[in-house]
């Protein structure tokens, strides 16, 4: 724990830094591969829509663990197919969890349904209380699908509005949206590749992860905004400030994700182990994948993308040039412009210029003295006794004040 905390502190102060922004193409490539797989899954296998969307009947029999076996399922499949009911000619019979068997058929009418129930009860030896059934007409399925779609669209619109209102900046909004789309696509892709059934609970899960993923992004962007707010007085470029923000929120992101994933994992585990397939599993699986991907995308996708979008901006370019200039000044050697009277007699290195490892900052270089004076470079500022805030008035090469014609009238 101490090591993790130490890491947290180092990340916070910037002493240690993981280059999230700089290595953006690595993350983009990773995401691109995953997205390609997801798209491949979607196209080649498609989603396995549950009966809630396609219409059909599902019978779930709760049995004791020793009865809920593949053998019983096979027996049941034969029996159901043997009823002669047309829509139940090719039933899907699976075991679910350790104590249930699920039979799925095409839509049936009431009489057929009653017959199927009798058949299932006969074969499994279960009682009326042990059987649960869901019958969904095709029209309802369309309805559910339509509502889910409307929900998704409305939610996305609201999210865009929210992001816009919160960040007041379309570039941040765009980056957040790309991250959202990324999360949803990957989650959907996981469903396609794994062949898990998509039910309304899954859709709910997906809508919920939209919220979670957005929230992760909000937290990171908040910090980015805070760090980049005072770029004019700091030595960082926009990219560096953003990267620092990600590093500073990294520990929190990890903690948040763990804490959010623990309960979802609990639901997922209990749902699968105890109930087999069902709304709990559908919901939890979508949430689990979505939350994990959401945490990843807010760090690895959203922020680098934001920086990339921002890099075209004039102000950000200024910031970069300013930061570069400041760095050059800092690196400038105070003795560089002092003319050497005697080449052989090198002066002892200034103790303030000696680095920790003992090397001297830069070997003396000859330079014309007149120029040095004119440029006002090479002055050694006495070391301050306390921390000094970098001030814009010190060491500026050019004033950035616009000419009167461009300043506008007051």
């Amino acid at each position, binding site marked *: 724990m*101490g090591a993790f905390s130490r890491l947290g502190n180092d990340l916070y102060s910037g002493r240690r830094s993981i280059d999230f922004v700089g290595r953006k193409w690595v993350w983009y490539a990773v995401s691109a591969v995953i997205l390609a797989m997801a798209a491949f899954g979607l196209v080649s296998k498609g989603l396995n829509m549950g009966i809630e969307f396609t219409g059909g009947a599902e019978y779930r029999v709760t049995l004791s663990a020793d009865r809920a076996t593949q053998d019983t399922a096979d027996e049941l499949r034969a029996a159901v197919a043997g009823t002669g009911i047309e829509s139940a000619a090719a039933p899907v019979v699976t075991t679910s969890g350790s104590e249930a068997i699920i039979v799925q058929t095409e839509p049936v009418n009431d009489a057929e349904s009653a017959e199927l129930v009798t058949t299932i009860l006969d074969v499994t030896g279960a009682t009326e209380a042990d059987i649960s*059934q*869901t*019958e969904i007409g095709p029209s309802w399925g369309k309805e559910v699908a339509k509502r889910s779609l409307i*929900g998704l669209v409305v939610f996305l619109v609201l999210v865009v509005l929210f992001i816009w209102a919160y960040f007041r900046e379309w570039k941040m909004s765009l980056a957040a949206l790309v991250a959202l789309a990324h999360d949803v696509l990957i989650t959907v892709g996981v469903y396609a590749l794994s062949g898990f059934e998509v039910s*309304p609970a899954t859709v709910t899960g997906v809508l919920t992860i939209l919220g979670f993923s957005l929230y992760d992004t909000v937290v990171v962007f908040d910090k980015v905004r805070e760090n980049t707010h005072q770029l004019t007085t700091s030595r960082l470029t926009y990219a560096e400030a953003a990267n620092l923000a990600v590093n500073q929120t990294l520990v929190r992101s990890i903690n*948040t994700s763990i804490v959010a994933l623990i*309960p979802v994992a609990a639901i997922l585990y209990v749902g699968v182990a105890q109930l087999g397939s069902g709304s709990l599993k559908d919901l939890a699986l979508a949430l689990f994948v979505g939350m994990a991907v959401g945490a990843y995308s807010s760090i690895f996708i959203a922020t680098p993308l934001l920086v990339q979008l921002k890099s075209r901006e004039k102000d950000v370019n200024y910031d970069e040039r300013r930061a570069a200039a400041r760095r050059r000044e800092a690196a400038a050697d105070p003795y560089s412009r002092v003319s050497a009277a005697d080449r052989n007699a090198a002066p002892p290195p200034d103790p303030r210029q000696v680095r920790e490892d003992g090397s001297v900052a830069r070997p003396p270089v000859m330079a014309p003295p007149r120029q040095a004076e004119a440029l006002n470079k090479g002055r050694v500022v006495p070391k301050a006794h306390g921390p000094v805030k970098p001030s814009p008035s010190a060491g500026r090469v050019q004033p950035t004040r616009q000419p009167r014609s461009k300043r506008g009238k007051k």
Partner: protein
Amino acid sequence: MAARRPNPGRTLVVFFLVVALSYGLVALAGVWKPKLGLDLQGGTRITLIAKGDVSSASLTEARGIIEDRVNGSGVAEAEVSTQGNKYIVVEIPGASRRDLVETVKRQAQLRFRVVAAVADGAAGASSSTPGTGTGPTTGTGTGTGPTTGTGVPGSAPTSSAPGGNNRAPYAWAGEKDKKNKTKTPTPTPSQSPATEQPTQADALDDPLTWMDNPDPRSLAAFNAFSCPASGEPANVDDDPDKPLVTCDEFGQKMLLSAALIEGTDLSSADTLPPSQQSVEWGVDLNFNRAGTTEFARISQALVNTNKQFAIVLDGRVISAPTMQGLITDGNAQITGRFSEAEARSLATSLKYGALPIAFEKDPPVELVGPSLAGNQLSAGINAGLAGLFLVMLYCLFYYRGLGLVVIASLLTAAALTYSLVVLLSEGAGFTLSLPGIAGLIVAVGITADSFIVYFERMRDEMRDGKSMRVAVEAGWLRARNTCLAADAVSLLAALVLYIFAAGVVKGFAFTLGLSTLIDLVVFFWFTHPMVSWLARFSFFNRGHAMSGLGAESLGLDAVSTSGGKA
């Protein structure tokens, strides 16, 4: 400083009073467990989907009718509710009731029958056949006669309402008399097993003849029948081909013939305001061609007698007027001592063939067996406890002393949530379903996250060199905004889900939204004051190794313990 901030101790006390108050309300309600959804206690759910756009008024009306129908079939605690602008959800808890699916799915039936006998339904004692003139009243035990039903309380004018209620006379309209030989009435002898009587095959063939001379079996059934307590619909099997014994809303039982006209033959029905001809409200009926011929036939048989015909809606007599004139043009009027509201209600019932809206053909039906329900309930509770426990463990491990604050906050939030869920299920009819439980569990993560945001902020402030007591406040100001944004997103998600998701998923959205609000309450009025209060103890503000704020856990070499910035 101290003057600006409320005293943390006082905030905590007030907060606990509020929690205690919520439990006081729960105790007052006397219910300690929330109502469980069907998926957790077993039962049947049928969702009816209205076709096309319907007004909320007609949806509500349809809901009332279906509720009557379900309750009429002897189910006590069925709940019928409208959802959104096009769904009616019928929920029948308890054992699965496959048989009820048909009852609910059936479009309501409106039929016209003729009345063979009327009696006070309370005891099933006396009966009388209002049928006069024509037929011999074979088999009826009691006196006959053209008078009003004998056992009727508050009897009505003899002339118009033999049934003893104020529904009544028929006045008619048109003159042109089309040939009224009808096509054969629906019932056939063999299809009326309850009344099969070889000797009376002819009579059975035509309900109009039958009504004057009901077969003994029907009469026996009629005599044995008694109406349920007033107001409740009778539990009868409304088969168009058989005679029917049922009740009207005044608690009188009636022996009715097989159906003569189906509700579908009625093309329109409207209220008829008082006019010069009539000082009362009435209802105007229009039949289609088949209905017109049949109605003309009934009219001929019934005119100038005290015999009634009955309009039966879902097995219940909604009106039993007599025929005041010969009506052959299919345009009839029912008058009686209607108030405007009564007339309107009758017209609506007639117009819509009972249900004001049509439903999609195959509604989704869900039956949850009790064993699955039990499994799901225990799975939900297990997952909840496991999730809560693991989150607490993680926080304790990572935040140590502060982890105790997380645990206390989570427990408080859980307590508050439970009391609210119970109160809502008692007061607002909220039922806790499996997705609802999932929502509560997922919310554990959201709630714990607020604390993490806060604590991380606090630690960041301390890393900047602030002392704990300062960092608590500085971190709070920043964490508060982040947390508000996060919860706003969560609430937004919950709201959209609640509005747009179909069916049970609403439960998930609801509990997620509820927990998010509770998270805010606990965060503002419990966690923050709690941390402020703890900051007074040297265990925390001196950075004890186990407090979670020590130098080692912050990754610093030394923690500032002085009052302000180092």
